């Protein structure tokens, strides 16, 4: 199927597609950080999923986060 296209054409299609996906990803990331993350965490909190909401809002606890039992890594 690809033999119908030249290498130049295939590379061009690849570069254009990569650029489009990259831009879509950038837009999605900005939207996620600016409001989707917070809204989702609030909704999860309302539904009672406290741990999941915390993880979405603040990320996974750091390995060296101090807990009452020592650091996360110590455990």
């Amino acid at each position, binding site marked *: 199927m690809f033999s119908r296209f*030249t*290498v*130049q*054409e295939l*590379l*061009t299609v690849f*570069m*254009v597609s*990569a*650029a*489009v996906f*990259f*831009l879509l990803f*950038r*837009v999605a990331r*900005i*939207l996620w*950080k*600016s*409001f989707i993350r*917070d809204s989702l965490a609030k909704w999860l909190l309302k539904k009672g999923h406290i741990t999941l909401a915390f993880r979405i809002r*603040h*990320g996974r606890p750091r390995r*060296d*986060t*101090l*807990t009452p039992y*020592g*650091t996360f*890594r*110590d455990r």
Partner: protein
Amino acid sequence: MAEQRAPTIRIALAGNPNCGKSALFNAMTGSRERVGNYPGVTVEKREGSARGPSGTRIRLIDLPGAYSLNPRTPDEEITREVILGLHKSEPAPDLIIAVADASNLSRSLGFALELKSAGRPLVLVLNMIDIARGRGAELDLKILSEELGIPVVATVATQARGINELLQAAEELLRNKTPPRGTAGPAPDTQARFAEIDRVLKAAFRHAPRPALWTERIDRFVLHPFFGSILLFLILAFLFQAIFNWANTPMEWIRAGTDSLGVLVESTFSEGPLRSLLVHGVIAGVGSVLVFVPQILLLFLFILVLEDSGYMARAAFLMDRLMGRVGLHGRAFIPLLSSFACAVPGIMATRTLESKRDRLATILVAPLITCSARLPVYALLIAAFIPNRGLLSLAGFELRLQGLVMLGLYFAGVIASLAMAFLFRKTLLKGPPPPLLMELPSYKWPTFRNLALGLMERLGTFLRRAGTVILALAIVLWFLASYPKPDPITTSQAAALPPLASSYAGQIGRALEPIFRPLGFNWQIVVALIPGFAAREMMIGALATVYSIEASTLGTGGALSTHLARDWSVATGLSLLVWYVLSCQCFSTLAVTRRETNSWRWPVLMLVYMTVLAYVGSFLTFQFVRALGGG
């Protein structure tokens, strides 16, 4: 059993604004966080890692500057929460380093005493000890340490002096688990704290530092309402003129480099879509933006020198009367100043403002301040439409019309932001005019390291943008401007329309053109405005791609500014300049406004009011210049 690794200890750096916390953070961690000689540079906590002399792993937290643990601003709130262990995602630090400006100890010690009352292990750092000693200060660190009941270390953070001693003191304190002496009972009230500071300083100082006489002498002139304003104008005029005069040669080198690369690719690749994509999309699009790197670096170099020397805080003081009249808080100067680089950190820097109304007013007008992404667009349009006529020659330095127009555009942004702030404060965000309480830092020579790091950081940011967003936009735009190819069967129909005009980009541009026709914009400009939303400077890349494809099909050539001067009227060029001064063409700015205000209302308001303002401004400019015969 595997050997258990020693846990990381958490150390927080806290102190008054502009006492050198971030410089100390950089010296301890080897980081390159932004520092500046004015209060309010750090508005978020930052983390870095360091190693103690005996190998202890340290996680260092740089906190925003605060005057007390009773926060008045959102950034001070972060400091309080972390220090008291109330922060949601940050455990309480194992040790606090209270950073104090050694040349102004009577002020800095108040916060240090408050930190002491938090009851955690505490080390006091007397930073900028070289400046204090230069002013004749003689201080006994041992007595100070005994009087305060905490270890005291002297440092010069910008030269990384005293860092080992500080880390040693921190390790020793944690090894012995010694809380500060004299923290039992309730925290002393303000009066008791001042009395305690007087007592401690009397005991520790053999000679107190003299006031900064040079700073006072210079300030008599620099802060003079009349002469100070003239000096400010002259400095800015010099700055913008120098951007045009000094950047020309390196810009020519980059232009020649990208042109040669284009020729090389053209001769290496056979005719085909990839060659067209590389030459007209990537090299023409990204190269036309990269050409402006020298101008951007020069602008940042001047801003960094003015910041580091302490002049920027004076400029804030001079502008305060004007800002107070339009209802902006004096501290809003710092966010607005940051917006000259980019509106995103500018909007984040509004966290230093106490009242929500002040914050909102500043956030709404910050994008009107000319950011560095607008600079290439201004430079291109000025080069195309403004004659490079000399106006005034002074001591071998010539003030030319192009530099003056650039300065005018920057002023236009400032005036528009002040006018809109006035309007917002009189309508949506009514409130009493806030007083200015701002500390003026003493003058300092900018350090080479700080300037170099600052420039490298800006250059890195710009090149990252050029290599990612701008590159991707250039590729997509090339595709939109090159396809669909005219059908050879209907060539006779297509002959009426050039291939570019019938491309996807041409179709989009021509569909939107009627909306922008009253502003004098042709469809090529309309096409270029769309990617400008993702990165303002991409407008140049977009125009370069569109005109490069057009030139290749029509067989014309020449620099982009020559194309613009030939194809556009002066009225169109000036109308586009006004559009760029006033429009909110930045997706990231809207997103960060949403995040900082926690509401869609304000970014939508920002987008609507700035678009209306830009449309009306461009329309009036176009019609006025055309009536004068510039159409």
